[in-house]
């Protein structure tokens, strides 16, 4: 994804990445990234949380014009509602089905 952003940016399309994998993003270094410390797949927050989803998108889109240093990453200040772990392929539904 970061690679695709870099190719698009070089071709004249401004890009911003809303990432949940901080170390992955730092390695690939897309032109602009907003890091959200939420579970992967909840990049914009919780279901139905329109306000937070909009805030995250607004902050990310604002980076398009605010960013002066290529490869800039900002850490958004939000905290997820509880602890979460790296997902190993066993979904909640899978776990329920197996139990």
């Amino acid at each position, binding site marked *: *994804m*970061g*690679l*695709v*952003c*870099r*190719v*698009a*940016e*070089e*071709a*004249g*399309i*401004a*890009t*911003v*990445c809303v990432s*949940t*994998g*901080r*170390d*992955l993003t730092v*390695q*690939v*270094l*897309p*032109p602009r990234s907003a*890091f959200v*410390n939420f*579970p*992967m*797949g*909840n*990049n*914009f*927050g*919780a*279901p*139905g949380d*329109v306000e937070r*989803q*909009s805030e995250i*998108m*607004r902050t*990310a*889109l*604002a980076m*398009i*014009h605010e*960013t002066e*240093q*290529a*490869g800039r990453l900002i850490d958004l200040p939000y*905290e*997820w509602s509880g602890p979460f772990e*790296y*997902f190993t*392929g066993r*979904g*909640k539904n899978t776990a329920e089905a197996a139990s």
Partner: protein
Amino acid sequence: MEPIKYVDELIAHYGSLGFPEYKWTVNDTAPLHRLEKPLSECVVSILVSGGVSQCSMPGFDPDARNDHRLDAIANETPEDDFQIHDSYYDHTDAEHDINCVFPITRLREFADAGEIGGVAARHWSGFMGRIYNRTKVLEESAPAFVAKLNEDAVDILLAVPA
């Protein structure tokens, strides 16, 4: 809490699945294109890499490697017309509200409110992870994708890796 160390976790996970060692791309510089016109005049498209497809389409291969499939998704697609197939993240929440990972309704609201100039005719889903043949991304798949963005006069790409 501290951010998850995905690099370490993925190396262990891929190894446990018998995948070859993944060579991460590490860059120390990045390109930057400055837009002259304000956000309120810009056309925005979304790209998501989390196995999101319309219900009328085949699901993505949830365990895919080197999958360069890229679906165009018409902007007017209803938000309940999506399915998600990807074994590498928990998409339970996104199945309830696609905007968690593919915020098409939020983007339409931004256009309606005049925060952005408009929503592109098409959004995009593809470039799922575990792509080992990255030269193909850089030389074929990504340039072909950029050509489609240009067809739709896209100014800004909002990218959502998952």
